[in-house]
């Protein structure tokens, strides 16, 4: 089974072989990027619009570079500043942009499900760049690629995801992806930051960091999303760092070769100790950023191919 979808809205609908195909393609782009030989003709003549209804410098830059490296014409729209303020609904915005006939829409939105809704109303490929607390598929793919390159495989690993899981779309997409690839997943969080019913996802739950990190191969830290907190999830940042912040002492419970990941941007001294983040023997955080561009190139390449096939079969775009 190969990746034939029109959109990339989440990890949930993907088959493990589709994930592997996306990662294999991304791996090739990662090498080409390092050699400075990215093929500029892959998305040549295609228009990519980045619609960010929520601020994100890093993800938007990553998508922009990915598109430009493959030759797409990239346009960024800061949606808070535009028609949204004038009261236009999401669907009207989508229809307006659709009429301009873009080929790729990259969308981030603060509401879960909003990108799915938008994808129903347009006839170009839509990439979910994060919707509410729901999914952030390219982040999970880049994390998967980083793990695969560091560990030589993406199955039968013991992986801990730690921190603000309740508010994290990164955690959800990673639980989906790592579960589909048959890894052991451990979630570590204070009970107030653990989503309800998550035990039914086939994961192990811990509220103690040292216990949860025991013998894991991968430590995936999450950002403590301060802007999402409407108060009272944790007593204080310093108590959080004491109990859940990743430092050398806590990390010593993981396997000696365990790698440390973080989706960024980091709060040093809140969820992660600065020296761990900067430890080139443990931290793969910079590699994650690098793989982010490669994964987004792969996703857009495959979606553009699928759109071309759809056109060839029907004469018009499906």
């Amino acid at each position, binding site marked *: 089974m190969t990746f034939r979808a029109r959109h990339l809205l989440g990890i*949930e609908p993907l088959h493990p072989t589709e994930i592997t195909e996306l990662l294999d393609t991304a791996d090739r782009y990662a090498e080409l990027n390092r050699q400075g030989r990215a093929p500029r003709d892959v998305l040549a003549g295609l228009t990519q619009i980045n619609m960010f209804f929520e601020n994100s410098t890093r993800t938007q830059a990553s998508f922009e570079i990915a598109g430009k490296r493959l030759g797409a014409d990239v346009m960024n729209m800061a949606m808070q500043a535009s028609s949204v303020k004038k009261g236009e609904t*999401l669907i009207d915005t989508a229809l307006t942009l659709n009429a301009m006939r873009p080929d790729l829409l990259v969308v981030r*939105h603060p509401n879960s*499900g909003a990108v*799915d*809704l938008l994808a129903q109303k347009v006839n170009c490929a839509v990439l979910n760049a994060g919707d509410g607390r729901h999914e952030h598929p390219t982040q999970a793919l880049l994390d998967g690629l980083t793990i695969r390159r560091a560990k030589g495989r993406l199955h039968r690993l013991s992986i801990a995801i730690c921190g603000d899981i309740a508010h994290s779309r990164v955690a959800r997409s990673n639980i989906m992806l790592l579960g589909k690839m048959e890894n052991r997943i451990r979630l570590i969080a204070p009970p107030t930051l653990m989503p*309800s019913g998550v035990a039914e996802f086939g994961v192990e739950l811990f509220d103690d960091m040292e216990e949860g990190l025991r013998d894991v191969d991968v430590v995936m830290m999450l950002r403590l999303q301060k802007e999402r907190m409407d108060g009272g999830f944790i007593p204080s940042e310093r108590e959080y760092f004491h109990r859940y912040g990743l430092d050398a002492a806590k990390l010593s419970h993981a396997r000696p070769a365990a790698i440390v990941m973080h989706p960024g941007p980091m709060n040093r001294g809140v969820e992660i100790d600065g020296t761990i983040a900067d430890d080139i023997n443990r931290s793969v955080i910079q590699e994650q950023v690098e793989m982010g561009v490669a994964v987004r190139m792969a996703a857009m390449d495959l979606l553009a191919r699928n759109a071309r096939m759809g056109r060839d079969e029907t004469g018009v775009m499906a």
Partner: protein
Amino acid sequence: MSTLFTNARLIDPERGETHGALLVEDGRIAGVIETGDLPQAAEVIDCRGHCLAPGIVDLGVKVSEPGERHKESFASAGRAAAAGGVTTIVTRPDTSPAIDTPETLEFVVRRAREDSPVRVLPMAALTKGRDGREMTEIGFLRDAGAVAFTDCDRVVTDTKVFSRALAYARSLDALVMAHVQEPGLSSGAVVTSGKFASLRGLPGVSPMAERMALDRDIALIEMTGARYHADQITTARALPALERAKRNGLDITAGVSVHHLTLNELDVADYRSFFKLKPPLRAEEDRQAVGEALASGLIDILCSMHTPQDEESKRLPFEEAASGAVGLETLLPASMRLVHGGVIDLPGLFRALSLNPSKRLGLETGRLAKGAPADLVWFDPDAPFVLDRATLRSKSRNTPFDGARLEGKVLGTWVAGRSVTESR
């Protein structure tokens, strides 16, 4: 003027099901004839072996007058009700402005009389502006025709305000209807917490929020002796508390919407906002437990919780979309899923749809007994159809049953012996 309904399955909520004829004279039931000779009548209607039952009394219908007439008017709601076998709609005061003065109540009564083919009984707000701070003129409002008092989906959080309103209502023998959701726990939530909520990344509320609110209200009714109705009990955990309160002799009843009995949280699927309700749809175990509670009579009243919303308020990301579903026309066919599924029998269903709400509001309707008002619904319980929401009479067509296979078609509706069925 007399009408004779012959060859009918008579669904009597009080005495069970029989086969026979029913005579209507001057707007009232003049007799039930099971055997022997049929009397003469000016008009004879052959029910062709299908069901004849007391018309539905739907407790908690939102008609969007005043304020949002583009969503639903008394004319459109009345037509929808007639098409659905609903002969009395008991309206909610959560309009804009709220129905919280005798003057606004009189507007509702007059508009309903002018435009609605079915009976309309208004409820009024319990507190001014439904703000939970000061009680309304419960006495004047009752005199002007308010049959119950409710702030609808807003919970009166200040227990002192609520206890005084309950005590005052008690002195007038007025019924208070309340929404049972602990507001702190449920704030911001759009689905029930659990695996599905986490999978979709939507903020959820624990089903415990319902029991907490019910527990509080039960303590306040014990304190004040008020007549109380919980609008929607939708979770298994709330049922023991309700059972205990009834056993202890408190004047408490409870309702549930047909949506919570026939759908569960998974129906939201890919963020389908037509399934966004208040309270949110529940887990399958809760749905089943509440269905059993309806069959046993622990939950007294089955309603549609008819809540019209236009396309614009629903075509939004799930968290931002408006809550509620229309239900006047689908209440009976959707309820028939419970009958066909063996959860409840037809007389039991019409106890919940017609008799119990009538009794709770002190109405004569809801019965097939001699002397009762001839508010009737004639329906084929087995007729299958696929619902097309474009055919609904409501101005708003936000039904979760679009495209659903339903069994049970209304063939005719009579209010006070007069047919209100539209020919289509």
